[in-house]
């Protein structure tokens, strides 16, 4: 008698989000299965890996994470190119220098940089502000306007500032990163609010990614639950792809700063876990880990 494995089918489907435009656009999401359950069917789109760059020359980065980019960190354009050469599917720019606690670079300058980058590089671009609620509104709105039609993935939009950012994202044809502090109820609330301004196909969830030993299990639980609620229970407000911006969290741990091998493990193990939890975009710093995670995603490990 033939054995047929019992397979679950689900009612919910994660929305497809397109980042970038033209031939270099990338589609994420679209799965109606649980993370990596490819045996449950649906030739789902597989998760993608982004490498992180910033506009402050990797200031504060652990030396092991800077090593591969030594000669290019002062030029975001070259740095982005290098990331793609080294295997990244897309590039994630953090606009660190706009931080009012730091260099406090004006929004217009940041917008000009992003505009140059998006024209030059050959992959979609994710852009994070510095994380200051108020400054991020200025910066992200300026970026959205300067790059009209480029379909960036822009954020973070948080409870305190989402309205203006979402408006600029909607008016200028981009996608938004909805960020909440590791709390599934707040995550849903922000999604519900954003859905009044944007279609779900323009939203990516960032539930915050904590590093191994620093709360990774909380991030894991939230991502896992998000995916279950969206796919298994069909909750329309939770059917967006997830971004795990984890590289920066891993490389700032004492363990990663103390030792190269430890740093590599910290980032790869955290990434592997959040991949299992349901992340659709992994943002990493080290290209070796980018390769490793891509192999894992392709099932070659």
């Amino acid at each position, binding site marked *: 008698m033939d054995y047929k494995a019992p397979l679950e089918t689900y009612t919910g489907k994660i929305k497809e989000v397109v980042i970038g435009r033209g031939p270099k656009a990338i589609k994420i999401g679209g799965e109606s299965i649980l993370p990596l359950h490819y045996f449950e069917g649906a030739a789902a789109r597989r998760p993608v890996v982004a490498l992180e760059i910033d506009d402050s020359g990797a200031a504060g980065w652990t030396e092991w994470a800077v090593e591969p980019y030594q000669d290019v960190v002062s030029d975001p354009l070259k740095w982005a190119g290098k990331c793609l050469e080294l295997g990244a599917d897309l590039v994630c720019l953090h606009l660190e220098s706009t931080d009012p606690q730091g260099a406090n670079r004006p929004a217009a300058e940041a917008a000009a940089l992003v505009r140059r980058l998006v024209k030059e590089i050959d992959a979609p671009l994710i852009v994070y502000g510095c994380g200051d609620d108020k400054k991020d509104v200025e910066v992200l709105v300026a970026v959205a306007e300067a790059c009209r039609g480029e379909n960036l993935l822009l954020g973070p939009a948080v409870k305190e500032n989402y309205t203006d950012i979402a408006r600029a994202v909607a008016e200028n044809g981009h996608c938004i990163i909805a960020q909440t502090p590791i709390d*599934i*109820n*707040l*995550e*849903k*609330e922000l*999604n*519900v*609010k954003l*859905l*009044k301004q944007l279609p779900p196909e323009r939203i990516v969830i960032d539930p915050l990614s904590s590093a191994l030993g620093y709360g990774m299990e909380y991030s894991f639980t939230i991502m896992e639950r998000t995916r279950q*609620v969206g796919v298994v*229970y069909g*909750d*329309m*407000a*939770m059917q967006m792809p997830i971004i795990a911006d984890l590289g920066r969290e891993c490389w700032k741990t004492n363990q990663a700063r103390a030792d190269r091998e430890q740093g590599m493990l910290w980032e790869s193990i955290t990434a592997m876990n959040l991949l299992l939890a349901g992340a659709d975009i992994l943002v990493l710093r080290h290209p070796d880990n980018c390769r490793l995670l891509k192999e894992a995603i392709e099932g070659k490990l």
Partner: protein
Amino acid sequence: MILIGESIHIISKVVSDAVSNRDAGPIQELARAQAAAGADYLDLNLGPARKEPQEVASRLVNTVQEVTDLPISLDTMNPLAMEAGLKLCQQRPLLNSASARAESRQHMMPLAVKYNTRVIISVITDRGCPPDVDSRAESILETVAYANGLGIPNEDIWVDPIILPVSADQRQVREALEFIKILPDLLPGVKSVVGLSNVSNGTPVNLRGILNRTYMVMLERSGLYSAIADVLDTELIELNKGGRAGIRELIYKVMERAPIDLAGLPEKDRDYVKTARVLMGEILYSHAWLES
């Protein structure tokens, strides 16, 4: 359902100011208003009553009894305050509350015997609130057996399953419903009681009422005997008296998982359906549950 008015609560600024200023006015006002609204008991919540427990409890009980004949539910963790208050109650009071906790067994439960009160016994143990129906059942069986041993009959025991906020632990909302349902089989003759408003603790203030009311209907259908509740909420009183049958029916339908055509409903009815679905755990809670 028996309603116990919750408004005289030491956490309320009006009440705590009135207590510390020895000002009877605001408290008597709240007592009168709740009596007029239809409360069956008045809860007097003194909290831990650390300062002058006996004096505060006696004063509060007397203050309230000056303006109403309603029986009192005396609510404090402090046995000294409890005893001082119970002594003065003219109607048979409700001791709120005892539990499996060692301290409660030693110092609270004997007061129920000594003053011949009705007593709320919660499922709480020294380890906290049991997480599911089975562990709640296990805890309450043991505690009620202990109370019976002291001479408290089941008819005088009001069991409290402990309601947790939907915004904090959504699953617990249904666990409590299930518990209420099986309680008569578990302990024939006991009554049940909940701190209803706890379900909406942590929810934005303007949205608390609909959660409380919806949950009240669901609990009542599951067999709940009484609730400590916001009796100044007129819609809650109306629902408790059997009014607003349409809304009640809709909530029942959600409990039975019957199909409902949301689009065809007026907004208010739709809000009740959405709320019932959240409480049943069908939809993930967020503060924006009415907006999607």
